[in-house]
């Protein structure tokens, strides 16, 4: 329940409770106004996190080739669907099991929501209703799978990916998530991750890394030891994606306050935006220096890098700290993208650099900047990042291996050359528009 926040919230909720008590004297007591406001805010945050799925779909489609676009859109439409359904059936009860041993707990299948006299218990949580809670958390859950999608794009089999995603969102994300947000062992140790630099982004990022390694590079990416760039097919689509993701982050971070507390939410929004802006500038400077030409795709990654970086401590930072966290994340992502490429790990959209590398950076930054900075906290952050890393990497390896052994992971070479759109879907993304030979060979 993002429990560190609870102390801060207490004060706010107590104040809100005053009119709530007053109302109880009224003939037919309804929800308190404080709950009503916070619930509106949390619903808005939910919508914003929802639209991140369109952001991811657009970004991933934009940064890959048009012959695989239908496949990418298909995956990204299925992910929130599968994510929500498995989270409703399984995930939510795994992630927030209530009292548990700190490592694994389960509150039961379906949504065992608290009721009072046949209706939803509105005293369940002063900040929002159970339904709002579920939906907000459910939208979060699906993002972890989406992150993987980008790194394995253009070569993974559709059904294998869907199976992986269902298990990853249904089991891995919520169980590991319970360690911190569910009040588990890492939470008890003092590990801090405000909105998920580690719990969402690194977790997704580890899945991405393992997936990219196990699949191998796209045909034609590394030829005779040389890196051949495979440019994405639509920069406008990629840009739309990043703006929608930034928009969504208002809800991702702002909603993680879990109430409409004016000071806390608005501070979080400001740190989030400053980090995003600084990430853009950091990436621009870095790419301009390294490549001499400012690379749009890198700047877009830089924006996300700043956002991922600030996510762990968005409520703990001042403006200056947010700026530096974002700026460094922006530089880091550029260097990381190039390094990972040189390691011959093929990540078409830079998901590993954005979500894993900057997710770790953001988690550690909580120990370096802002209200919680300190050597001890830094150690705990390191431990937390490590614990998530090992667990998720192992889990992802196991799932991908089983899927590989049973259904296979990678499409046939012929299908890859021809494009997954025809191979998997029998449909083209742009049937009217002539494609350049470039879409098929790197020569033109």
């Amino acid at each position: 329940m993002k429990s560190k926040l609870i102390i801060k919230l207490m004060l706010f909720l107590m104040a809100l409770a005053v009119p709530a008590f007053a109302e109880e004297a009224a003939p037919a007591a309804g929800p308190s106004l404080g709950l009503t406001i916070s619930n509106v805010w949390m619903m808005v945050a939910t919508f914003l996190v929802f639209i991140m799925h369109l952001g991811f779909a657009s970004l991933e489609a934009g940064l890959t080739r048009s012959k695989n676009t239908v496949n990418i859109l298909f995956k990204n439409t299925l992910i929130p669907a599968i994510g929500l359904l498995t989270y409703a059936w399984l995930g939510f009860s795994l992630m927030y099991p209530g009292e548990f041993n700190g490592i694994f707990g389960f509150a039961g299948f379906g949504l065992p929501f608290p009721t009072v006299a046949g209706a939803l218990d509105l005293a369940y949580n002063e900040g929002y209703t159970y339904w709002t809670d579920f939906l907000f958390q459910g939208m979060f859950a699906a993002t972890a799978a989406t992150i993987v999608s980008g790194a394995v794009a253009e070569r993974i089999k559709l059904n294998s990916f869907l199976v992986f995603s269902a298990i990853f969102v249904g089991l891995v994300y919520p169980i590991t998530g319970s360690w911190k947000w569910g009040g588990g062992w890492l939470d008890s140790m003092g590990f801090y991750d405000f909105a998920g630099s580690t719990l969402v982004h690194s977790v997704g990022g580890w899945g991405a890394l393992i997936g990219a390694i196990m699949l191998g590079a796209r045909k034609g990416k590394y030829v005779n030891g040389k890196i051949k760039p495979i440019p994405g097919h639509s920069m406008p689509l990629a840009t739309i994606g990043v703006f929608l993701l930034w928009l969504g982050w208002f809800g991702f971070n702002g909603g993680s306050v879990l109430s409409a507390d004016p000071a806390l939410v608005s501070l979080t929004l400001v740190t989030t935006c400053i980090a995003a802006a600084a990430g853009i500038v950091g990436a621009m400077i870095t790419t301009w220096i390294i490549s001499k030409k400012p690379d749009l795709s890198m700047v877009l990654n830089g924006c996300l890098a700043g956002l991922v970086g600030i996510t762990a401590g968005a409520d703990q930072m001042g403006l200056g700290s947010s700026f530096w966290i974002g700026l460094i994340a922006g530089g880091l992502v550029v260097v990381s993208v190039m390094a990972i490429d040189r390691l011959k790990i093929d990540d078409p959209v830079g998901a590993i650099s954005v979500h894993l590398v900057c997710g770790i950076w953001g988690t550690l930054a909580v120990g370096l900047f802002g209200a919680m900075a300190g050597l001890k906290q830094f150690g705990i952050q390191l431990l937390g990042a490590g614990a998530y890393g090992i667990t998720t990497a192992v889990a992802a390896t196991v799932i991908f291996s089983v899927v590989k052994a049973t259904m296979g992971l990678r499409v046939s070479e012929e299908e890859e050359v021809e494009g997954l759109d025809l191979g998997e879907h029998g449909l083209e993304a742009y049937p009217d528009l002539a494609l350049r030979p470039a879409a098929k060979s790197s020569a033109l």
Partner: protein
Amino acid sequence: MKMVSAIIKHFKLDEVRDALNKIGVQGMTAIEVKGFGRQKGHMEVYRGVEYEVKFLPKVKIEVAVPGNKLDDVIRAIQEKAKTGEIGDGKIFVYDLEDVVRIRTGERGEEAL
């Protein structure tokens, strides 16, 4: 009859068409092509990796002409399409055995 096929730079197409019109050529066909030759391609950078795009966009025009107009047509194209810089393109001349106007069935020079 001859078929004159010329690879030229895009922004010269207007001028070439007008010049051909002036010397009585009433039709032509243009095709988007990519050319590789002495002219260097341009370097692009994507995510930190530089690469050369070797084929450059050009436009190819095909003009069927009666034999007696061949020299005029070649001269017109060459003059108008020229910038003097590498990559201006080439003119190719083929023999054309027959032409049919689909609408009327006319054949040979009639059909041009």
